[in-house]
């Protein structure tokens, strides 16, 4: 389908595709098997300016919109969702600064992020605070000119690898949702260490760790936005990133389809390629139709965000929900189309299927997305009355 992308968007797509083919595809299986962080690939992506697509030009980025960024995410996801998770989480971590950072904070951090000199991670989730973000236990206590941070963040993508961390901590428990605040913490700050590296089912090229704060003192200037705005920062950050997870879904789904059809064309059974069987044709047709529908939704939401739409919670939740449920179904079907070969590690689709599962879980489970969508529908219906 033709989405009437601009010349620059096509340039981004071709470049991301080139990196995917030249730098990612040859090593993705090894990264997956050895749980290895893709330092070289991230460096290549940084050299190609892909890490600064969505960062304003005044901070050394390309100043492009969500669609431009999602196109890059989609292409990288086609090749390896582990690499793309590292890439997308970098954006997730930088959104609090981008959306709410002071001009000093932006000047201090964004140029290094845009150039890929520094990676970023976003720290919200805790052992008792996943879907229910109000369960946050990590605290930040103001003492003179410093905040003292205590607590443990869990399952943080880019943990240990990132240099900059944007985290949410409770500054005043009595105030409930208005008692959380967002902070930026730099790696190397005394009292800030990393816990165990998780051994995951998929996206194994990405790094997931605990962040441990033990009387970690950070300057007062590291507060993002105002004290008490932590939940707003977190929610707006997730609103901005969610459709990007949808783009990951579109990418991995398309990657799986491409592998499945390539295989099916040359797999001979009953004396003919299996693509000559309607059973296989219909599966492939459904896979591509679902993926194209997901892509259309993701791109439409991206264009909405880029057009300056204010309330993007529902659309971005829908894009995330539909594209990632699609990714799970399509990657599973890709394994089915390829049969026994699809189940083997000689082919990349078993990895794609393992990788795809996380998309339904992270950055808000798809059940939470349905909550967001449903509640917004009810709110709208109530307003209309």
């Amino acid at each position, binding site marked *: 389908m033709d989405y009437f992308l601009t010349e620059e968007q096509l340039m981004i797509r071709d*470049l991301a595709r080139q*990196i995917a083919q030249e730098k990612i595809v040859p090593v993705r299986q090894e990264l997956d098997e050895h749980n290895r962080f893709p330092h070289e690939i991230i460096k290549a992506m940084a050299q190609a*300016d892909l890490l600064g697509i969505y960062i304003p030009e005044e901070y050394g980025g390309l100043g492009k919109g969500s669609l431009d960024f999602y196109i890059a995410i989609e292409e990288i996801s086609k090749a390896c969702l582990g690499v793309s998770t590292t890439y997308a989480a970098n954006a997730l971590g930088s959104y609090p600064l981008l959306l709410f950072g002071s001009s000093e904070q932006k000047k201090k951090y964004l140029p290094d992020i845009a150039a890929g000199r520094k990676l970023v991670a976003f720290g919200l989730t805790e052992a008792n605070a996943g879907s229910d973000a109000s369960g946050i236990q990590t605290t930040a206590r103001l003492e003179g000119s410093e905040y003292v941070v205590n607590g443990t963040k869990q399952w943080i993508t880019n943990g240990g690898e990132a240099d900059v961390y944007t985290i949410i901590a409770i500054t005043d428990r009595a105030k409930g949702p208005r008692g959380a605040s967002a902070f930026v913490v730099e790696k190397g700050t005394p009292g800030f260490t990393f816990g165990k590296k998780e051994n995951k089912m998929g996206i194994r090229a990405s790094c997931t760790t605990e962040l441990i704060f033990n009387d970690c003192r950070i300057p007062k200037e590291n507060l993002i936005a105002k004290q008490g705005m932590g939940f707003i920062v977190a929610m707006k950050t997730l609103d901005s990133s969610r459709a990007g997870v949808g783009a990951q879904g579109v990418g991995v789904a398309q990657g799986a389809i491409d592998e499945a059809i390539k295989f099916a064309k040359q797999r001979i059974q009953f004396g003919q390629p299996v693509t000559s069987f309607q059973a296989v044709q219909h599966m492939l047709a459904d896979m591509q139709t679902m993926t194209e529908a997901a892509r259309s939704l993701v791109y439409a939401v991206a264009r909405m965000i880029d057009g300056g739409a204010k309330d993007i919670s529902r659309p971005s939740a829908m894009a995330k929900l539909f594209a990632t449920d699609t990714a799970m179904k399509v990657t599973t079907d890709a394994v089915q189309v390829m049969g026994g070969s699809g189940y083997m590690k000689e082919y990349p689709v078993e990895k794609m299927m393992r990788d795809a599962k996380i998309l339904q879980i992270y950055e808000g489970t798809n059940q939470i997305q349905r909550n967001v969508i449903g509640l917004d529908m009810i709110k709208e219906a109530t307003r209309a009355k």
Partner: protein
Amino acid sequence: MHIIVLVKQVPDTAEVKINRETNTLVRDGVPSIINPYDRYALEEAVRLREKHGGTVTAITMGPPQAAEALKEAVSLGADSVVLLSDRAFAGADTWATSYALSMGIRKAGPFDLIIAGKQAIDGDTAQVGPETADMLGIPFVAYIRKIEKVEGKLMVAERLMDEGYDVVETTLPCLITVVKEINDPRVPSLKGKMKAKGLQVKPWTAKDIGADESKIGLKGSPTQVVRIFPPAPRGQREILGGTIEEQVAAVTKKLKAQSLI
């Protein structure tokens, strides 16, 4: 540092046909790319610039469409480009090409280092590098696989040899050719591609670079291609290890086995 990179636009495939009457390449209809070895040269130049500062200039001689190769060089990190393009350059052999390049380089201004690929994949002569160095009167080192250091007017580098490598020290400015072992070339950058897209490449003519007309193009080309043939394959070779005594014993045994002694 001002680093100049010699770039050649070549056909994208080994499937190029040869005109048997003229013994030259038939290039029509074959897509063109930057000579792959020149990608390593350009990457090394960009890395040196990132380390030491300065500028990278890519230079090529060719038809007007060779500007595309220079645009690609910009997308890969070159700061500026020089296109030598003039009907008078047509039909040049390596000698006339090297002369034109040397004149273009003189016009491009003072430089510290010139890097080229070890050879081009179409002609495979590996002559333009050394000939250009000679015409510029600067040192030349071939087959560089690693630049160890650049300090002031001194460069230390490793030259790939059939067995192992040499550590070479040379003064700057000089011209080196590089092998693919030297680096892993990056993909283009978005900023580079955007810059390349808007780039207007104004060619320099023979007159612009003050070239002597008798030394360029077909007129300045003494080469005649008499015959084209693949080189005879090298025989099996083996390097013996161990002490001198062990090596002598091994050689003796092998020679005896072949009934040579």
